[in-house]
């Protein structure tokens, strides 16, 4: 028996198995899609994440039903916490919602494909190399995609800069306009406290080929996480100058900021 079969037998109940099969994804005859997503691995990941989501981070979600149940969607969120835990939690929140769940994809940093085991694992859970061509083709497939427009500027930020949004790239807005995708702003509160970093050791990061190397305790703290989902935003595909695209991006950034504020207000304690 392979490790995957063993884990599936131990962790995945029959109900969960059927539940995920019912959500349905555009996959090939062996359960894979072109980006490496695998239905069977996802079931194991889903079962493990449920434990982490419910018991470790005790996630509270507000407004998850605002994410459309079908059609191309870009879920735009703030990025924090050194590791892509925020993406995992948003993904699980959407996949586990009662009313018409969806399995979203997440755009991941460009260095992940070069990391053995982890790169493949993220792909199998729905993570996709953060390339505009990938995003465009998935939107054309009608997928919901989690995007962190801050990129490594967000995930690598230090504890002292917590909940300060870094510059948003314009790429997601161009894709949303081109593919008529609904933009849903999301604020994640709590992930900043999971791996608080006090410094970035740049020479070590350069040496290892990593985008950053945080000076932090080698543990993931059980901070309580709040996810606040904002109202969907739709943008037309008019031929507008880049300046106006930036204005639209700023609108989304402000909406994400609002959601963070809402989450911070809801939060009663850090852990």
């Amino acid at each position, binding site marked *: 028996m392979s490790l995957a079969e063993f884990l599936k037998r131990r962790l995945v109940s029959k109900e969960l198995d059927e539940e995920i099969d019912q959500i349905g994804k555009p996959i*090939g005859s*062996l359960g894979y899609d*072109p980006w490496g997503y695998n239905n069977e691995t996802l079931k194991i990941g889903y079962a493990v994440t449920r434990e982490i989501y419910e018991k470790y981070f005790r996630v509270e979600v507000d407004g998850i039903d605002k994410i459309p149940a079908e059609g191309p969607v870009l879920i735009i969120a703030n990025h924090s916490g050194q590791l892509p835990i925020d993406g995992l939690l948003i993904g699980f929140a959407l996949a586990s919602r009662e009313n018409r769940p969806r399995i979203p994809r997440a755009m991941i940093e460009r260095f992940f494909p070069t990391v053995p085991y*982890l790169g493949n694992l993220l792909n199998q859970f729905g993570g996709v190399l953060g390339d505009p061509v990938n995003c465009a083709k998935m939107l054309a497939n009608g997928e919901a995609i989690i995007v962190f427009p801050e990129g490594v500027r967000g995930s690598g930020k230090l504890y002292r800069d917590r909940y300060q949004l870094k510059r948003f790239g314009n790429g997601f807005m161009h894709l949303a306009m081109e593919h008529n995708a609904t933009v849903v702003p999301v604020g994640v509160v709590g992930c900043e406290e999971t791996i608080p970093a006090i410094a970035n050791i740049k020479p070590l990061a350069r040496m290892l080929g990593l985008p950053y190397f945080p000076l932090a305790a080698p543990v993931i703290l059980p901070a309580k996480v709040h996810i606040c989902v904002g109202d969907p935003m739709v943008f037309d595909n008019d031929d507008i100058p880049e300046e106006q695209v930036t204005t639209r991006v700023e609108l989304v950034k402000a909406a994400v900021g609002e959601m963070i504020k809402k989450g911070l207000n809801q939060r009663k304690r850090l852990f």
Partner: protein
Amino acid sequence: MTTEKRPQILVTGAAGTLAQQVINQLRDTCDLVAVDFREQVWLGDDIPSYCIDFNKRVFEDLFRRFHFDGVIHLGRIMSSQETRLSRYNANVLGTQKLLDLSHKYNVQRVIILSTFHVYGAVPYNPAMIDEAAPLKAAGLTMDLVDSVELENLANIYLWRYPHLNITILRPCNIVGPGVRNAMSTLLSSERAPVLAGFSPMMQFIHIDDMADALVLAYRRNHKGIYNVAPSDWVAYQKALDLCGCKRVPILSIPPIVPRTLLRLLNLRRFPPYLMDFFKYPVIIDGRAFAREFGFQPKRSLDEIFHYYLENKHPV
């Protein structure tokens, strides 16, 4: 009473299984001439077969004698064979000679078989690469330069001599009975090397489907460049499992370790210059070909892998 003239077609690479499949599909409706630079193959009394180096002058005699209407160029030395120089001479200069003669003798249809390797395996490749994507292979390894050069050459002839109606096909991994390329040898072996922690997505096309694609491409005249791949995908290590291959992991980082090891071992089925294809996915989008030519592969991945599972060391 007049009878319609049967098209006269030159098929290169006749000793290969793919060419023989194509010949079998076309022999009832076309007059065929088969050539190969490796060996002379007997294909029946109705098909003249020659062993000729394209760069020799006698090659032109074939064009003089047979007045070809079309050329299906499948005769390439695979990247795992011969030296770089002889591959360059045969694949690039030989193809140039073939295209020059096709132009000189008014050939009206040319099909050229390329490979998805021309895109190159880089970690930043998006999936579903379409035909307009840059060909990065030449920048990554000298061993694939001839594949990229062959394409560049075919492209130049495509726009310079539109009457040649050149169609270039870039298929994914061609596998199945009789196929002797690196991937097919790997799937048919008992043990196969894998780079620890890497299991890139791959695409496979059955040789019968590829032969169908070539015949379709010849019959429907749409010139241009097309990827040929089914809309089905599988991770490399899963494919090995399904073929009953035991996986032999090779330390994958730092990259110098597997590269040195593979150079030392020099395995034909896992050549060092293809190492990155076993590390990073190169997933191509075959939908344009399917749409333009009405192509639908008939053999599933299950069927392909089942063949390898049942036939260890088939070739």
